Protein backbone atom coordinates (compact mmCIF):
# COMPACT_ATOMS: atom_id res chain seq x y z
CA UNK A 1 0.00 0.00 0.00
CA UNK A 2 1.71 3.16 -1.16
CA UNK A 3 0.53 6.49 0.10
CA UNK A 4 1.39 9.98 -0.99
CA UNK A 5 0.64 12.84 -3.32
CA UNK A 6 0.26 12.51 -7.09
CA UNK A 7 0.58 15.62 -9.25
CA UNK A 8 -0.91 17.69 -6.49
CA UNK A 9 -1.48 21.40 -6.84
CA UNK A 10 -2.26 23.56 -3.81
CA UNK A 11 -2.96 27.27 -4.01
CA UNK A 12 -3.73 29.77 -1.28
CA UNK A 13 -5.44 32.61 -3.05
CA UNK A 14 -3.14 33.63 -5.86
CA UNK A 15 -0.09 31.97 -4.39
CA UNK A 16 0.72 28.47 -5.63
CA UNK A 17 2.22 26.58 -2.73
CA UNK A 18 2.59 23.21 -4.45
CA UNK A 19 2.85 22.82 -8.20
CA UNK A 20 2.51 19.33 -9.65
CA UNK A 21 4.07 17.63 -6.66
CA UNK A 22 4.41 13.87 -6.38
CA UNK A 23 5.61 12.23 -3.17
CA UNK A 24 5.46 8.51 -2.50
CA UNK A 25 5.52 6.96 0.94
CA UNK A 26 6.09 3.22 1.18
CA UNK A 27 5.93 0.97 4.24
CA UNK A 28 9.28 0.38 5.96
CA UNK A 29 10.83 3.29 4.11
CA UNK A 30 11.83 6.76 5.16
CA UNK A 31 10.95 9.40 2.59
CA UNK A 32 12.44 12.79 3.18
CA UNK A 33 11.11 16.02 1.75
CA UNK A 34 13.98 18.49 1.78
CA UNK A 35 13.95 22.17 0.95
CA UNK A 36 14.61 25.60 2.33
CA UNK A 37 12.17 27.80 4.17
CA UNK A 38 9.08 28.52 2.09
CA UNK A 39 9.72 25.63 -0.28
CA UNK A 40 6.36 24.08 0.50
CA UNK A 41 7.44 21.21 2.76
CA UNK A 42 4.86 21.93 5.47
CA UNK A 43 2.13 22.39 2.89
CA UNK A 44 3.14 19.09 1.33
CA UNK A 45 2.90 17.25 4.63
CA UNK A 46 -0.33 18.95 5.62
CA UNK A 47 -1.88 17.94 2.32
CA UNK A 48 -0.75 14.39 2.96
CA UNK A 49 -2.47 14.19 6.34
CA UNK A 50 -5.59 16.00 5.27
CA UNK A 51 -5.22 19.46 6.81
CA UNK A 52 -5.08 21.06 3.40
CA UNK A 53 -7.22 20.21 0.40
CA UNK A 54 -5.51 20.28 -2.99
CA UNK A 55 -6.96 22.04 -5.99
CA UNK A 56 -5.77 19.26 -8.28
CA UNK A 57 -4.19 15.83 -8.02
CA UNK A 58 -4.77 12.79 -5.84
CA UNK A 59 -3.86 12.18 -2.23
CA UNK A 60 -3.69 8.68 -0.81
CA UNK A 61 -3.66 8.35 2.93
CA UNK A 62 -4.77 5.85 5.52
CA UNK A 63 -7.76 6.70 7.72
CA UNK A 64 -7.16 9.10 10.61
CA UNK A 65 -6.87 6.23 13.03
CA UNK A 66 -3.77 4.99 11.23
CA UNK A 67 -1.90 8.28 10.80
CA UNK A 68 0.62 9.79 13.19
CA UNK A 69 1.45 13.47 12.66
CA UNK A 70 3.80 15.87 14.38
CA UNK A 71 3.54 19.48 13.13
CA UNK A 72 6.56 21.75 13.00
CA UNK A 73 5.31 23.87 15.83
CA UNK A 74 4.67 21.55 18.70
CA UNK A 75 3.22 18.11 19.03
CA UNK A 76 2.45 18.07 22.71
CA UNK A 77 0.64 19.97 25.42
CA UNK A 78 3.11 22.03 27.39
CA UNK A 79 0.82 22.32 30.39
CA UNK A 80 0.21 18.60 30.71
CA UNK A 81 2.69 16.11 32.11
CA UNK A 82 4.31 13.47 29.95
CA UNK A 83 1.93 10.86 31.33
CA UNK A 84 -1.13 13.08 30.81
CA UNK A 85 -0.11 13.70 27.22
CA UNK A 86 0.12 9.95 26.68
CA UNK A 87 -3.26 9.43 28.32
CA UNK A 88 -4.88 11.99 26.06
CA UNK A 89 -3.51 10.37 22.92
CA UNK A 90 -4.54 6.94 24.11
CA UNK A 91 -8.06 8.24 24.71
CA UNK A 92 -8.30 10.09 21.42
CA UNK A 93 -7.24 7.02 19.46
CA UNK A 94 -9.24 4.71 21.70
CA UNK A 95 -6.34 2.40 22.41
CA UNK A 96 -7.17 -0.72 24.39
CA UNK A 97 -5.43 -0.81 27.76
CA UNK A 98 -3.28 -3.93 27.55
CA UNK A 99 -1.22 -3.39 24.41
CA UNK A 100 -1.04 0.29 25.09
CA UNK A 101 0.77 -0.11 28.40
CA UNK A 102 3.57 -2.17 26.85
CA UNK A 103 3.96 0.09 23.86
CA UNK A 104 4.02 3.15 26.08
CA UNK A 105 6.78 1.64 28.18
CA UNK A 106 8.84 0.78 25.11
CA UNK A 107 8.50 4.24 23.60
CA UNK A 108 9.34 5.99 26.84
CA UNK A 109 12.45 3.89 27.24
CA UNK A 110 13.58 4.54 23.71
CA UNK A 111 13.16 8.26 24.13
CA UNK A 112 14.76 8.36 27.55
CA UNK A 113 11.60 9.79 29.05
CA UNK A 114 10.80 6.86 31.33
CA UNK A 115 11.99 8.71 34.40
CA UNK A 116 10.04 11.90 33.83
CA UNK A 117 6.45 10.76 33.40
CA UNK A 118 5.36 13.40 35.87
CA UNK A 119 7.21 16.32 34.36
CA UNK A 120 5.29 19.03 32.50
CA UNK A 121 5.79 19.05 28.75
CA UNK A 122 6.82 22.67 28.85
CA UNK A 123 9.60 21.90 31.30
CA UNK A 124 11.36 19.47 29.01
CA UNK A 125 14.27 20.67 26.91
CA UNK A 126 13.68 21.25 23.19
CA UNK A 127 15.14 17.93 22.18
CA UNK A 128 13.12 16.01 24.73
CA UNK A 129 9.93 17.75 23.64
CA UNK A 130 10.49 16.65 20.08
CA UNK A 131 11.16 13.11 21.23
CA UNK A 132 7.99 13.09 23.28
CA UNK A 133 6.01 14.45 20.33
CA UNK A 134 7.37 11.63 18.16
CA UNK A 135 6.52 9.07 20.84
CA UNK A 136 2.97 10.43 21.07
CA UNK A 137 2.60 10.09 17.32
CA UNK A 138 3.83 6.49 17.47
CA UNK A 139 1.74 5.37 20.43
CA UNK A 140 -1.06 3.98 18.30
CA UNK A 141 1.35 2.22 15.90
CA UNK A 142 0.28 4.15 12.79
CA UNK A 143 0.79 2.90 9.25
CA UNK A 144 1.96 6.34 8.15
CA UNK A 145 4.13 8.59 10.30
CA UNK A 146 4.52 12.19 9.19
CA UNK A 147 6.97 14.53 10.91
CA UNK A 148 7.40 18.19 9.99
CA UNK A 149 10.95 19.40 10.71
CA UNK A 150 11.35 17.20 13.79
CA UNK A 151 15.01 18.03 14.25
CA UNK A 152 15.19 21.74 13.47
CA UNK A 153 16.85 23.54 16.31
CA UNK A 154 17.43 20.34 18.26
CA UNK A 155 20.81 19.50 19.79
CA UNK A 156 22.81 16.86 17.90
CA UNK A 157 22.51 14.19 20.53
CA UNK A 158 18.72 14.40 20.69
CA UNK A 159 18.68 14.53 16.93
CA UNK A 160 20.50 11.23 16.70
CA UNK A 161 18.05 9.72 19.16
CA UNK A 162 15.11 11.02 17.18
CA UNK A 163 16.50 9.40 14.08
CA UNK A 164 16.92 6.18 15.94
CA UNK A 165 13.25 6.36 16.87
CA UNK A 166 12.33 7.06 13.26
CA UNK A 167 14.56 4.24 12.07
CA UNK A 168 12.91 1.90 14.53
CA UNK A 169 9.47 2.84 13.24
CA UNK A 170 10.56 2.16 9.67
CA UNK A 171 12.06 -1.16 10.71
CA UNK A 172 8.67 -2.12 12.11
CA UNK A 173 6.99 -1.43 8.79
CA UNK A 174 5.73 2.11 9.19
CA UNK A 175 5.88 4.40 6.17
CA UNK A 176 7.68 7.51 7.35
CA UNK A 177 7.67 10.94 5.74
CA UNK A 178 9.93 13.60 7.21
CA UNK A 179 10.33 17.21 6.16
CA UNK A 180 13.69 18.80 6.89
CA UNK A 181 15.96 21.63 5.88
CA UNK A 182 19.07 19.64 6.73
CA UNK A 183 20.51 18.19 3.59
CA UNK A 184 22.76 15.75 5.45
CA UNK A 185 19.67 14.12 6.96
CA UNK A 186 18.16 13.71 3.52
CA UNK A 187 21.16 11.67 2.47
CA UNK A 188 20.14 8.89 4.84
CA UNK A 189 16.65 8.42 3.46
CA UNK A 190 15.48 5.62 1.24
CA UNK A 191 13.84 8.18 -1.00
CA UNK A 192 14.23 11.94 -1.26
CA UNK A 193 12.04 14.68 -2.70
CA UNK A 194 13.77 18.01 -3.20
CA UNK A 195 11.30 20.88 -3.12
CA UNK A 196 11.82 24.49 -4.01
CA UNK A 197 9.18 27.16 -4.41
CA UNK A 198 6.51 24.47 -4.55
CA UNK A 199 8.14 22.46 -7.32
CA UNK A 200 9.92 19.13 -7.20
CA UNK A 201 13.50 19.65 -8.37
CA UNK A 202 14.60 16.07 -7.93
CA UNK A 203 13.24 12.86 -6.49
CA UNK A 204 14.39 9.30 -5.99
CA UNK A 205 16.93 7.50 -3.84
CA UNK A 206 19.95 9.56 -2.75
CA UNK A 207 22.19 7.42 -4.95
CA UNK A 208 19.96 7.95 -7.96
CA UNK A 209 19.93 11.69 -7.41
CA UNK A 210 23.71 11.72 -7.12
CA UNK A 211 24.11 9.72 -10.31
CA UNK A 212 21.79 12.13 -12.08
CA UNK A 213 23.92 15.21 -11.41
CA UNK A 214 24.60 16.59 -14.87
CA UNK A 215 27.96 17.92 -15.92
CA UNK A 216 30.91 18.03 -13.56
CA UNK A 217 31.58 19.37 -10.09
CA UNK A 218 34.90 20.70 -8.83
CA UNK A 219 36.53 22.63 -6.04
CA UNK A 220 38.58 25.81 -6.08
CA UNK A 221 40.67 27.34 -3.33
CA UNK A 222 39.87 30.72 -1.85
CA UNK A 223 40.77 33.29 -4.43
CA UNK A 224 41.31 36.92 -3.85
CA UNK A 225 39.91 37.72 -7.25
CA UNK A 226 36.38 36.51 -6.48
CA UNK A 227 34.11 33.90 -7.94
CA UNK A 228 35.73 31.28 -10.18
CA UNK A 229 32.84 31.34 -12.58
CA UNK A 230 29.14 32.13 -12.23
CA UNK A 231 28.00 28.67 -11.19
CA UNK A 232 29.96 28.46 -8.00
CA UNK A 233 29.17 28.66 -4.33
CA UNK A 234 31.06 28.82 -1.10
CA UNK A 235 31.81 25.81 0.99
CA UNK A 236 34.06 26.33 3.97
CA UNK A 237 37.07 28.36 2.99
CA UNK A 238 36.83 27.50 -0.69
CA UNK A 239 34.39 27.17 -3.53
CA UNK A 240 32.47 24.40 -5.25
CA UNK A 241 32.00 24.84 -8.97
CA UNK A 242 29.50 23.31 -11.34
CA UNK A 243 30.02 23.00 -15.06
CA UNK A 244 26.80 21.83 -16.72
CA UNK A 245 28.58 20.96 -19.91
CA UNK A 246 31.20 18.87 -18.15
CA UNK A 247 34.20 21.15 -18.75
CA UNK A 248 35.50 22.62 -15.50
CA UNK A 249 37.08 26.09 -15.81
CA UNK A 250 40.81 26.54 -15.39
CA UNK A 251 42.14 26.32 -11.86
CA UNK A 252 39.28 24.17 -10.68
CA UNK A 253 40.04 20.68 -9.40
CA UNK A 254 37.51 17.96 -10.19
CA UNK A 255 35.71 16.52 -7.20
CA UNK A 256 33.22 13.76 -6.49
CA UNK A 257 29.87 15.42 -5.96
CA UNK A 258 28.28 14.71 -2.60
CA UNK A 259 24.62 15.02 -1.78
CA UNK A 260 24.99 18.64 -0.76
CA UNK A 261 26.40 19.39 -4.22
CA UNK A 262 23.57 17.50 -5.86
CA UNK A 263 21.01 19.66 -4.10
CA UNK A 264 22.75 22.93 -4.95
CA UNK A 265 23.17 21.86 -8.57
CA UNK A 266 19.47 21.01 -8.79
CA UNK A 267 18.58 24.45 -7.41
CA UNK A 268 20.99 26.21 -9.78
CA UNK A 269 19.61 24.27 -12.72
CA UNK A 270 16.08 25.24 -11.76
CA UNK A 271 17.08 28.88 -11.51
CA UNK A 272 18.74 28.78 -14.90
CA UNK A 273 15.64 27.20 -16.34
CA UNK A 274 13.44 30.06 -15.15
Amino acid at each position, binding site marked *: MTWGLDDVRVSFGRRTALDDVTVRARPAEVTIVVGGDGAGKSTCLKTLVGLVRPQAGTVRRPPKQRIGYVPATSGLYADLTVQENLDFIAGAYRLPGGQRGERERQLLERTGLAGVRA*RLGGQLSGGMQRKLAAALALLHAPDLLVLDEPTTGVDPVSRVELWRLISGA*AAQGTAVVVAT*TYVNEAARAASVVLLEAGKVLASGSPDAILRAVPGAVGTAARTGAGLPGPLSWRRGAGWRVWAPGGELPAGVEPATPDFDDA*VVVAELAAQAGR
Partner: protein
Amino acid sequence: MTPVDALAESAAVWRRFGSHVAVRAVDLAVAAGEVVGLLGANGAGKTTLIRLLLGLLQPSQGSVRLFGAPPSVSGRRRAGYVPQTLGLYDDLTVAENWSFTAAAFGVRAALPASVAGVRNELVGALPLGTQREVAFAVALAHRPELLVLDEPTSGVGPLGRARLWEQIRQAADGGAGALVTTHNLEEAQECDRLVVMADGRVVASGTVAGIVGDRTVTEVRSADWARAFAVLDQEGYEVQVHGQGVLRVTGQAADVQKVLAASGIEAQARTVGANLEEAFVALVSGPAFPGRAVPGPAVA
Protein backbone atom coordinates in the same frame (compact mmCIF):
# COMPACT_ATOMS: atom_id res chain seq x y z
CA MET B 1 49.18 33.15 16.65
CA THR B 2 50.31 35.39 19.46
CA PRO B 3 47.79 36.75 21.97
CA VAL B 4 48.04 40.19 20.41
CA ASP B 5 46.59 38.88 17.13
CA ALA B 6 43.48 37.42 18.68
CA LEU B 7 40.33 39.50 18.43
CA ALA B 8 38.74 37.68 21.28
CA GLU B 9 40.26 35.11 23.56
CA SER B 10 39.79 33.35 26.80
CA ALA B 11 42.48 31.69 28.88
CA ALA B 12 41.55 28.98 31.38
CA VAL B 13 38.27 30.76 32.04
CA TRP B 14 35.78 29.41 34.52
CA ARG B 15 32.26 30.59 35.28
CA ARG B 16 30.11 29.30 38.09
CA PHE B 17 26.49 30.07 38.89
CA GLY B 18 26.12 29.06 42.50
CA SER B 19 27.04 25.38 42.59
CA HIS B 20 26.59 24.91 38.84
CA VAL B 21 29.71 25.17 36.70
CA ALA B 22 28.75 26.53 33.30
CA VAL B 23 32.21 26.96 31.83
CA ARG B 24 35.32 25.15 33.01
CA ALA B 25 38.91 25.89 32.00
CA VAL B 26 38.13 26.98 28.45
CA ASP B 27 40.85 28.28 26.15
CA LEU B 28 39.52 29.86 23.02
CA ALA B 29 40.82 32.40 20.53
CA VAL B 30 39.40 33.98 17.41
CA ALA B 31 41.85 35.67 15.07
CA ALA B 32 41.22 38.15 12.29
CA GLY B 33 40.08 36.56 9.07
CA GLU B 34 39.07 33.21 10.53
CA VAL B 35 35.71 31.63 11.15
CA VAL B 36 35.56 29.57 14.31
CA GLY B 37 32.62 27.27 14.97
CA LEU B 38 31.51 26.66 18.53
CA LEU B 39 29.65 23.39 18.56
CA GLY B 40 27.80 21.81 21.43
CA ALA B 41 24.47 20.69 22.78
CA ASN B 42 22.15 22.92 24.79
CA GLY B 43 23.62 23.56 28.18
CA ALA B 44 27.15 22.88 26.95
CA GLY B 45 28.17 26.38 27.90
CA LYS B 46 28.32 28.04 24.47
CA THR B 47 26.08 30.96 25.36
CA THR B 48 27.82 31.55 28.68
CA LEU B 49 31.20 31.57 26.94
CA ILE B 50 29.98 34.12 24.41
CA ARG B 51 28.71 36.36 27.17
CA LEU B 52 32.06 36.08 28.94
CA LEU B 53 33.92 37.03 25.76
CA LEU B 54 31.71 40.05 25.22
CA GLY B 55 32.00 41.16 28.82
CA LEU B 56 28.35 40.63 29.64
CA LEU B 57 29.46 38.28 32.42
CA GLN B 58 32.51 38.31 34.64
CA PRO B 59 34.65 35.18 34.81
CA SER B 60 34.88 33.37 38.14
CA GLN B 61 38.47 32.48 37.27
CA GLY B 62 40.83 32.97 34.36
CA SER B 63 41.00 35.84 31.91
CA VAL B 64 39.10 37.14 28.93
CA ARG B 65 40.32 39.67 26.40
CA LEU B 66 38.32 41.46 23.74
CA PHE B 67 40.42 43.30 21.17
CA GLY B 68 43.43 42.91 23.38
CA ALA B 69 41.89 44.44 26.50
CA PRO B 70 39.38 43.40 29.16
CA PRO B 71 35.90 43.50 27.62
CA SER B 72 34.18 46.88 27.80
CA VAL B 73 31.36 48.85 26.25
CA SER B 74 33.67 50.35 23.64
CA GLY B 75 34.93 46.87 22.89
CA ARG B 76 31.40 45.62 22.37
CA ARG B 77 30.79 48.45 19.94
CA ARG B 78 33.41 46.95 17.70
CA ALA B 79 31.58 43.62 17.66
CA GLY B 80 28.46 42.66 15.77
CA TYR B 81 25.99 40.14 17.14
CA VAL B 82 23.22 38.31 15.32
CA PRO B 83 21.06 36.20 17.63
CA GLN B 84 19.12 33.22 16.40
CA THR B 85 15.93 35.24 16.51
CA LEU B 86 17.61 37.79 14.24
CA GLY B 87 16.95 40.81 16.42
CA LEU B 88 14.75 42.46 13.82
CA TYR B 89 11.29 43.93 14.29
CA ASP B 90 8.80 41.93 12.29
CA ASP B 91 6.33 44.77 12.05
CA LEU B 92 8.79 47.30 10.63
CA THR B 93 10.11 47.47 7.09
CA VAL B 94 13.70 46.68 6.21
CA ALA B 95 14.47 50.36 5.79
CA GLU B 96 12.91 51.20 9.15
CA ASN B 97 14.89 48.48 10.94
CA TRP B 98 18.05 49.77 9.27
CA SER B 99 17.49 53.37 10.27
CA PHE B 100 16.71 52.37 13.85
CA THR B 101 19.92 50.36 14.24
CA ALA B 102 21.98 52.95 12.42
CA ALA B 103 20.66 55.65 14.72
CA ALA B 104 21.25 53.51 17.79
CA PHE B 105 24.90 52.94 16.86
CA GLY B 106 25.34 56.48 15.63
CA VAL B 107 26.22 55.35 12.15
CA ARG B 108 25.22 56.96 8.89
CA ALA B 109 25.16 54.40 6.13
CA ALA B 110 23.04 53.43 3.16
CA LEU B 111 21.25 50.11 2.92
CA PRO B 112 23.49 47.68 1.03
CA ALA B 113 22.52 46.78 -2.52
CA SER B 114 21.94 43.11 -1.68
CA VAL B 115 18.87 43.95 0.36
CA ALA B 116 17.94 47.33 -1.08
CA GLY B 117 15.43 45.60 -3.32
CA VAL B 118 13.21 44.77 -0.37
CA ARG B 119 13.68 47.99 1.55
CA ASN B 120 9.94 48.65 1.90
CA GLU B 121 8.88 45.14 2.77
CA LEU B 122 7.83 44.29 6.28
CA VAL B 123 10.47 42.04 7.74
CA GLY B 124 7.81 39.67 8.96
CA ALA B 125 6.59 39.15 5.40
CA LEU B 126 9.99 38.17 3.99
CA PRO B 127 11.11 34.57 3.53
CA LEU B 128 13.53 33.35 6.17
CA GLY B 129 16.60 33.45 3.93
CA THR B 130 16.02 37.10 3.07
CA GLN B 131 15.30 37.92 6.71
CA ARG B 132 18.67 36.50 7.65
CA GLU B 133 20.36 38.51 4.92
CA VAL B 134 18.78 41.65 6.29
CA ALA B 135 19.83 40.71 9.82
CA PHE B 136 23.42 40.28 8.67
CA ALA B 137 23.37 43.55 6.77
CA VAL B 138 22.10 45.34 9.84
CA ALA B 139 24.73 43.73 12.06
CA LEU B 140 27.49 44.59 9.61
CA ALA B 141 26.34 48.21 9.22
CA HIS B 142 28.83 49.53 11.73
CA ARG B 143 31.70 47.48 10.27
CA PRO B 144 32.41 45.30 13.28
CA GLU B 145 35.77 43.63 13.63
CA LEU B 146 34.34 40.62 15.38
CA LEU B 147 31.13 38.87 14.36
CA VAL B 148 29.27 36.69 16.79
CA LEU B 149 26.57 34.67 15.07
CA ASP B 150 24.11 32.29 16.64
CA GLU B 151 22.99 29.55 14.26
CA PRO B 152 23.17 31.90 11.29
CA THR B 153 21.88 29.56 8.64
CA SER B 154 19.56 27.04 10.22
CA GLY B 155 16.29 26.56 8.37
CA VAL B 156 17.64 27.77 5.02
CA GLY B 157 18.31 25.42 2.09
CA PRO B 158 21.85 24.79 0.81
CA LEU B 159 21.85 27.51 -1.84
CA GLY B 160 20.53 30.06 0.63
CA ARG B 161 23.08 28.86 3.15
CA ALA B 162 25.86 29.35 0.63
CA ARG B 163 24.68 32.87 -0.08
CA LEU B 164 24.64 33.75 3.61
CA TRP B 165 28.08 32.26 4.16
CA GLU B 166 29.21 34.40 1.25
CA GLN B 167 28.52 37.42 3.41
CA ILE B 168 30.28 35.95 6.43
CA ARG B 169 33.30 35.01 4.31
CA GLN B 170 33.39 38.45 2.75
CA ALA B 171 33.57 40.02 6.17
CA ALA B 172 36.30 37.57 7.15
CA ASP B 173 38.23 38.34 3.97
CA GLY B 174 38.01 41.98 4.94
CA GLY B 175 39.81 41.26 8.20
CA ALA B 176 36.97 40.54 10.60
CA GLY B 177 36.88 37.40 12.70
CA ALA B 178 33.75 35.37 13.18
CA LEU B 179 32.61 33.15 16.01
CA VAL B 180 29.66 31.02 15.02
CA THR B 181 27.77 29.10 17.67
CA THR B 182 25.76 26.21 16.39
CA HIS B 183 24.45 22.76 17.06
CA ASN B 184 23.91 22.25 13.38
CA LEU B 185 26.53 20.01 11.88
CA GLU B 186 26.04 21.33 8.36
CA GLU B 187 26.89 24.80 9.56
CA ALA B 188 29.83 23.47 11.55
CA GLN B 189 31.41 22.16 8.38
CA GLU B 190 31.54 25.65 6.91
CA CYS B 191 33.89 26.91 9.59
CA ASP B 192 37.67 27.03 9.36
CA ARG B 193 37.96 25.18 12.61
CA LEU B 194 35.68 23.84 15.28
CA VAL B 195 35.64 23.95 19.05
CA VAL B 196 33.40 21.28 20.50
CA MET B 197 31.99 21.88 23.95
CA ALA B 198 30.18 19.61 26.32
CA ASP B 199 29.33 20.10 29.95
CA GLY B 200 31.20 23.38 30.08
CA ARG B 201 34.56 22.17 28.78
CA VAL B 202 36.22 21.87 25.40
CA VAL B 203 36.23 18.21 24.39
CA ALA B 204 37.73 18.59 20.94
CA SER B 205 39.12 21.27 18.73
CA GLY B 206 40.45 21.42 15.18
CA THR B 207 39.18 20.82 11.68
CA VAL B 208 36.34 18.45 10.89
CA ALA B 209 38.74 15.79 9.71
CA GLY B 210 40.80 16.26 12.83
CA ILE B 211 37.80 15.86 15.10
CA VAL B 212 36.48 12.79 13.36
CA GLY B 213 39.95 11.34 13.46
CA ASP B 214 40.03 7.66 12.72
CA ARG B 215 36.77 6.77 14.32
CA THR B 216 34.86 4.06 12.55
CA VAL B 217 31.42 2.55 12.50
CA THR B 218 30.12 -0.66 10.98
CA GLU B 219 27.98 -0.55 7.88
CA VAL B 220 25.54 -3.41 7.55
CA ARG B 221 23.83 -4.34 4.29
CA SER B 222 21.13 -6.95 4.39
CA ALA B 223 17.92 -7.88 2.67
CA ASP B 224 16.48 -8.62 6.09
CA TRP B 225 17.52 -5.24 7.45
CA ALA B 226 14.40 -4.71 9.52
CA ARG B 227 15.12 -7.80 11.60
CA ALA B 228 18.80 -6.95 11.71
CA PHE B 229 17.82 -3.59 13.16
CA ALA B 230 15.61 -5.16 15.80
CA VAL B 231 18.23 -7.70 16.81
CA LEU B 232 21.09 -5.24 17.05
CA ASP B 233 18.89 -2.75 18.88
CA GLN B 234 17.91 -5.44 21.34
CA GLU B 235 21.57 -6.19 22.01
CA GLY B 236 22.15 -2.56 22.93
CA TYR B 237 23.95 -1.35 19.84
CA GLU B 238 23.19 2.09 18.45
CA VAL B 239 21.73 1.55 15.02
CA GLN B 240 20.62 4.02 12.39
CA VAL B 241 18.94 3.36 9.08
CA HIS B 242 20.75 4.90 6.13
CA GLY B 243 18.99 4.65 2.81
CA GLN B 244 17.44 1.44 1.60
CA GLY B 245 18.35 -1.59 3.65
CA VAL B 246 21.58 -0.09 4.97
CA LEU B 247 22.35 0.21 8.66
CA ARG B 248 25.13 2.05 10.45
CA VAL B 249 26.04 0.51 13.76
CA THR B 250 28.35 1.83 16.44
CA GLY B 251 30.55 -1.14 17.18
CA GLN B 252 33.21 -3.46 15.73
CA ALA B 253 32.33 -5.18 12.47
CA ALA B 254 33.36 -8.57 13.79
CA ASP B 255 31.07 -8.34 16.84
CA VAL B 256 28.17 -7.12 14.75
CA GLN B 257 28.61 -9.95 12.28
CA LYS B 258 28.61 -12.48 15.13
CA VAL B 259 25.38 -11.12 16.62
CA LEU B 260 23.62 -11.19 13.28
CA ALA B 261 24.84 -14.67 12.46
CA ALA B 262 23.58 -15.90 15.84
CA SER B 263 20.08 -14.80 14.84
CA GLY B 264 20.37 -16.35 11.43
CA ILE B 265 20.41 -13.06 9.56
CA GLU B 266 22.39 -12.90 6.34
CA ALA B 267 24.24 -9.62 6.08
CA GLN B 268 27.49 -8.01 5.04
CA ALA B 269 29.17 -5.93 7.70
CA ARG B 270 32.16 -3.75 6.95
CA THR B 271 34.07 -1.02 8.71
CA VAL B 272 33.66 2.49 7.35
CA GLY B 273 34.78 5.92 8.54
CA ALA B 274 32.49 7.72 10.96
CA ASN B 275 30.85 11.00 10.05
CA LEU B 276 30.92 14.21 12.10
CA GLU B 277 27.60 13.44 13.73
CA GLU B 278 28.76 10.05 14.95
CA ALA B 279 32.05 11.53 16.14
CA PHE B 280 30.25 14.31 17.98
CA VAL B 281 27.93 11.93 19.76
CA ALA B 282 30.89 9.75 20.76
CA LEU B 283 32.71 12.81 22.09
CA VAL B 284 29.91 14.16 24.20
CA SER B 285 28.63 10.91 25.59
CA GLY B 286 31.92 9.31 26.45
CA PRO B 287 32.44 7.73 29.87
CA ALA B 288 33.19 11.10 31.45
CA PHE B 289 29.69 12.36 30.81
CA PRO B 290 26.26 11.26 31.94
CA GLY B 291 24.64 8.73 29.64
CA ARG B 292 22.19 9.99 27.06
CA ALA B 293 19.30 8.16 28.65
CA VAL B 294 19.26 10.67 31.49
CA PRO B 295 16.70 13.36 30.70
CA GLY B 296 18.68 16.17 32.21
CA PRO B 297 17.48 18.98 34.48
CA ALA B 298 14.01 20.43 34.13
CA VAL B 299 13.95 23.45 31.89
CA ALA B 300 11.75 25.97 33.63
